[in-house]
């Protein structure tokens, strides 16, 4: 049984953490071939070849694949699908854009955000914002899957897979890239950080988010936010943790001024240790916290930053 894994490649670079976590999940299904697609993808392909458990790497370089537009990327994957029983990817926004399209082109269902592999046809996935876990058995000949990266450990290095260049698929020319707005940051990436410090509506303003960021920088942590904080313009969209934002499971998650709506809990409740700081002792976030502190975050967060 063979598995085709769409690597996460951004501007020619391999997102190693997300890809290596998907490799761990995929290894249970068969020999893993990793596909690196992009305007430039050769370096990503070389990096992917070193992930432990990768049997082979395919590199597709073409201008049409440069910005991970769904149509050309899905067309390429569908054209390769014949050789594979499982077509998988880490559940990033890029893959969530592409993989359902691949599934429909193959006339099969997609399995999104899979958190557990039972066997080659049977998978676990969270539904209802993680308030239930469903085990489903696919009757499709091909399984198209995205893996929830927070539930799998990254595969190590030490592989030496062969790398082969392939052509791009057909570009239907339906969309074109205009621009990316990506904030440069020295902080670790949210979904792979060991520590995450998040702020919510209680933080009150974009300026006040500096308190959260200071604590994060002291701990070498990534910064997260609740939906309320993002909607209010306190924090950028890519910081959102939750059901429809990023799902994180760091060793330590500190939530300040976050009430703990189920949609937020869905994105962080698998963290190893959860700390909640909120002035409202009734806030639902305390129900999932290992350590809860009822306090004004404007006093507690700076004090914590100082004392850690």
């Amino acid at each position: 049984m063979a598995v085709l894994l769409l690597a996460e490649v951004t501007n020619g670079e391999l997102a190693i953490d997300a890809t290596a976590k998907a490799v761990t999940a995929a290894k249970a299904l068969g020999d893993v071939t990793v596909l690196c697609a992009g305007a430039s993808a050769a370096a990503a392909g070389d990096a992917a070849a070193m992930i432990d458990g990768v049997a082979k790497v395919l590199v597709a370089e073409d201008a049409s694949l440069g910005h991970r537009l769904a149509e050309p990327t899905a067309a390429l994957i569908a054209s390769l699908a014949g050789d594979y029983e499982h077509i998988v990817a880490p559940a990033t926004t890029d893959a969530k854009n592409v993989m359902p399209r691949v599934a429909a082109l193959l006339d099969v269902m997609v399995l999104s955000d899979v958190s557990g592999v039972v066997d080659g046809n049977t998978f676990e996935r969270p539904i209802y914002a993680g308030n239930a876990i469903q085990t489903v058995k696919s009757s499709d000949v091909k399984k198209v899957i995205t893996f929830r990266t927070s539930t799998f450990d990254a595969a190590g290095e030490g592989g030496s897979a062969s790398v082969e260049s392939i052509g791009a698929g057909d570009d239907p020319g339906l969309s074109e890239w205009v621009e990316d707005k990506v904030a440069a940051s020295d902080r670790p990436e949210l979904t792979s950080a060991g520590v995450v410090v998040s702020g919510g509506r209680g933080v009150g303003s974009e300026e006040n988010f500096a308190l959260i960021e200071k604590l994060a920088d002291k701990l070498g942590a990534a910064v997260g936010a609740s939906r309320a904080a993002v909607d209010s313009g306190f924090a950028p969209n890519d910081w959102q943790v939750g059901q429809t934002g990023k799902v994180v499971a760091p060793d330590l998650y500190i939530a300040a001024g976050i009430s703990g709506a189920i949609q937020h809990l869905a994105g962080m409740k698998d963290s190893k240790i959860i700390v909640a700081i909120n002035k409202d002792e009734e806030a639902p976030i305390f129900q999932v916290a290992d350590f809860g502190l009822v306090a004004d975050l404007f006093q507690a967060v700076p004090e914590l930053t100082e004392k850690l």
Partner: protein
Amino acid sequence: MKVLVPVKRVIDYNVKVRVKADGSGVDLANVKMSMNPFDEIAVEEAIRLKEAGKAEEIVVVSIGVKQAQETLRTALAMGADRAILVVAADDVHTDIEPLAVAKILAKVVEEEQPGLVLAGKQAIDNDMNATGQMLSAILGWSQATFASEMGIDGDSAVVTREVDGGLQTIKVKMPAIVTVDLRLNEPRYASLPNIMKAKKKPLDEKTADDYGVDVTPRLEIVKTSEPAARAAGIMVGSVDELVAKLKEAGAV
């Protein structure tokens, strides 16, 4: 231009989900149901396009149980013009898979010939995040998912998408499928007069068979279980105590 907006009836986002004791699913009997929040945003965006003179007619469609009629009435009360209900299940616990939904929608698109389909990016029940992309594949249309901003400019749409690294703007050829994210707009509430008026707006009832689509699921639900519960935590009285506990736990 006609805009088609698929809407789904789901458990209200404020309701605490209960897994049935026999593991057969989530209890949906006598639970408050509402329009999927992302679909509300899609309906709102369609209405704004109409108000801006960029769309002439808004057709909403729901696929599922007969009770989805209420969801369609809500969309009509918000400002949609016409509704199509495709009855594809009898039991409120039956979830029609995105692939089957997309196939039915593709047939509706063939009949209605909209210039744009605006859909929620995901339903908050099955969290699949798939229907828009699948519909786009079946129709061979362009797709712009997770939209936080959009504008229509002649025969193309410029859409800003919420992605992992931040924002991406793309330009897609019309007709297109756009799936909407949280920050696109804030949906309006339907006023009482509009709720009354909505009762008189046309609502066509069809079945999946009318469209010749087989809705047999590809994924058999083996079981549904509660997620592992977290062990109860403790409340600390001060930052000092918190620091001590974190050190004790080896977290810092």
